[in-house]
């Protein structure tokens, strides 16, 4: 009997075919899964197992010109809870409040408010100690979490607070270079792929280089921390002595337009932003405008010489203190002077002499002088909130303007505009936009910036800088070396003299507008001094502006601002190792001059 004849043969055959069919079905299903549904299923699996999270870029450090750290970033943990899962009672909230140094009442009120929501910040940026305390609490599962955030810290505390600016709790730039250079500082966030298992545990973190965050390592400013400290300390002393409503100091390198220091009062500490007065947020160097007074006179003289409206040998009859202009306006001087040459007009700060120069130049010439030196428009410094000043259109100028503009009235400027314009005189006639950004360090070459990038230079970025010609070099040099040097040698700026160096400068005392009377106030002044050194090759220019110093004396820039500027100049020149250019013995013959005697 053959197997085919066996009674079980058909059963075996049927079973075999059934098995083959079953395998066939499985094979077909596999083909269906692997061929037709593969993409969709792979996508579904990826969605279930992979999570892509954003990795924030570490904000770039900010350093001074010597690499001293001004602003740095550290990571800190912020605590959030899911109130739905949080079965809270008073004891737990009390423990949480103690761990995070929050007030119990406030926290319990917030938890009550958020009880129907799925997310609530408990506290942002906890200290390490607070994080440890929070972790030691017995939390319900899935009810809380920490989010890593970058926190900006300011190791130099108040120094250069107005230049640096700050970021809010969410890391958004709000002021200073933090805001203006935000594209360089903030960087670009990256991505990170996390692979999770079925129990939602992270089993793999995929760090692909192309998805890494991009940022510069550091942004370098032109500020010099030592000079900044000199300026801040002198300004602090000035504020203690004269109690002004506001004051500012700017120190600038005239050839490059680089800001070496910028201090503003009132100020604040970026490390402690509780209880900051409203006025303290304002950067007085760029966000206030004032009538410059006598510090404006050198520009008119320089432009008059440039336009050949006057020569250095011209003399002006100052009529012993009272003069009536061509339009009928009466001008008065503080001192009674007779014939004065151009140098003496500036040294004695004669309003009558300047009014006569204004008569020669007429409004068109004066307007050209004002605009040529950059007034009426922002200087372009990389700081946000810079004002343009107030410059009325020429059509609105009257015969009154012909007398006012030459003595620094009817025009309002920012301290930054004024120092930029004086730097133009100090550097031979080139008006340069001041700059605070020196460059950037680090691997950020793939970032989109408006700056030119050179990989061979450690300073990768050089911001564009505007330069405009103002007056001829010989005219600018003459204004610096003659009248402005004489102002400090024997004029109203005598208190800015410093041993070993020749100094040039100009004082300014401007009456403030009084809204009550609609005229100039008799008691509120803005006093200022602008000066630089050494005269033959100016390395530094300093501007000190003091708004409403509290005094019953007749306030003058030479008395309040000049000594401060002198001390800052002295320390800055020593710090920069600029060689002395003046013989002390020859300087001694000027010692008999005294400011109070001069002003009588």
């Amino acid at each position, binding site marked *: 009997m053959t197997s085919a004849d066996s009674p079980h043969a058909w059963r075996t055959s049927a079973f075999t075919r059934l098995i083959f069919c079953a395998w066939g079905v499985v094979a077909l299903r596999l083909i269906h899964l692997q061929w037709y549904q593969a993409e969709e299923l792979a996508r579904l699996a990826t969605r279930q197992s992979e999570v892509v999270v954003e990795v924030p870029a570490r904000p770039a450090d900010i350093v001074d010109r010597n690499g001293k750290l001004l602003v740095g970033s*550290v990571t800190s943990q912020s605590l959030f809870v899911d109130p739905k899962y949080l079965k809270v009672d008073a004891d737990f909230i009390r423990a949480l409040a103690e761990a995070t140094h929050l007030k119990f009442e406030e926290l319990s009120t917030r938890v009550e408010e958020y009880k129907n929501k799925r997310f609530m910040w408990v506290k942002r940026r906890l200290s390490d100690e607070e994080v440890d305390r929070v972790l030691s609490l017995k939390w319900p599962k899935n009810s809380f979490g920490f989010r890593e955030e970058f926190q900006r810290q300011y190791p*130099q505390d108040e*120094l250069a607070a107005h230049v640096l600016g700050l970021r809010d709790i969410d890391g958004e730039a709000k002021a200073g270079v933090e805001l203006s250079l935000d594209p360089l500082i903030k960087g670009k966030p990256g991505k990170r792929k996390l692979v999770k298992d079925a129990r939602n545990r992270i089993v*793999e*973190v995929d760090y692909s280089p192309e998805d890494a965050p991009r940022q510069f390592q550091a942004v370098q400013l032109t500020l010099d921390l030592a000079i900044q400290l000199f300026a801040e300390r002198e300004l602090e002393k000035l504020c203690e002595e004269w109690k002004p409503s506001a004051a500012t100091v700017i120190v600038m390198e005239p050839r490059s337009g680089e800001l070496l220091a910028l201090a503003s009062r009132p100020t604040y500490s970026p490390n402690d932003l509780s209880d900051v007065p409203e006025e303290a947020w304002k950067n007085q160097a760029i966000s206030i405008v004032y009538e410059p007074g006598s510090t404006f006179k050198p520009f008119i003289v320089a432009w008059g010489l440039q336009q050949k409206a006057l020569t250095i040998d011209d003399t002006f009859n100052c009529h012993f203190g009272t003069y009536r202009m061509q339009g009928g306006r009466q001008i008065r001087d503080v001192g009674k002077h007779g014939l004065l040459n151009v140098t003496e007009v500036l040294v004695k700060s004669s309003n009558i002499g300047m009014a006569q120069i204004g008569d020669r130049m007429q409004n068109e010439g004066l307007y050209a002088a004002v605009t040529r030196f950059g007034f009426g428009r922002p200087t372009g410094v990389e700081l946000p909130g810079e004002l343009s000043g107030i410059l009325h259109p020429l059509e609105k100028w009257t015969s009154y303007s012909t007398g006012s503009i030459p003595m620094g009235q009817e025009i309002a400027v920012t301290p930054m505009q004024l120092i930029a314009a004086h730097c133009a005189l100090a550097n031979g006639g080139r008006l340069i936009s001041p700059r605070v950004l020196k460059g950037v360090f680090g691997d950020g070459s793939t970032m989109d910036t408006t700056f030119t990038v050179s990989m061979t230079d450690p300073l990768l970025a050089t911001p564009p800088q505007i330069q405009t010609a103002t007056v001829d070099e010989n005219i600018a040099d003459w204004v610096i070396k003659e009248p402005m040097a004489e102002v400090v040698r024997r004029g109203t700026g005598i208190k800015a003299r410093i041993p*070993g160096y020749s100094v040039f400068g100009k004082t300014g005392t401007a009456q403030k507008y009084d809204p009550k009377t609609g005229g100039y106030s008799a008691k509120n002044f803005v006093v200022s001094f602008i000066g630089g050194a050494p005269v033959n090759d100016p390395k530094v220019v300093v501007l000190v502006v003091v708004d409403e110093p509290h005094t019953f004396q007749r306030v003058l820039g030479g008395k309040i601002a000049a000594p401060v500027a002198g001390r800052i100049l002295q*320390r800055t020149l020593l710090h920069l*190792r*600029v*060689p002395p250019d003046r013989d002390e013995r020859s300087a001694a013959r000027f010692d008999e001059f005294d400011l109070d005697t001069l002003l009588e």
Partner: protein
Amino acid sequence: MFFRFSFAVILIVLLSLVGIAVEKQNLECRREMSRQHYRMDVLKDQHARLRLRSQKLAAIDRLVETIEQKGSQLKQPEKAPVVRPQDDDEPRRAPLLFWNKPLLDPRLNDRG
């Protein structure tokens, strides 16, 4: 027939085991990379913290106060600066300043 079948099965099993071992090694390498990246992040943050701390401790405001409290002062050089030869491209600068009084740091005295 049996040997051929057994050999094929053993070969498949061996290949599978090798594949699994390679996959495990690959996974371990990737985990190690993840750990290294994590360590790098932690070190970067530690570096930032330490740098901030060192800069806070060496803040110019603190140093100047310490120096001034000890009575030292910046002094101008007594001698005129040495004039460099004309072919030297470096700009002329004043010599470094020096302190009127030596800094009295007890740690320096401890060195013996």
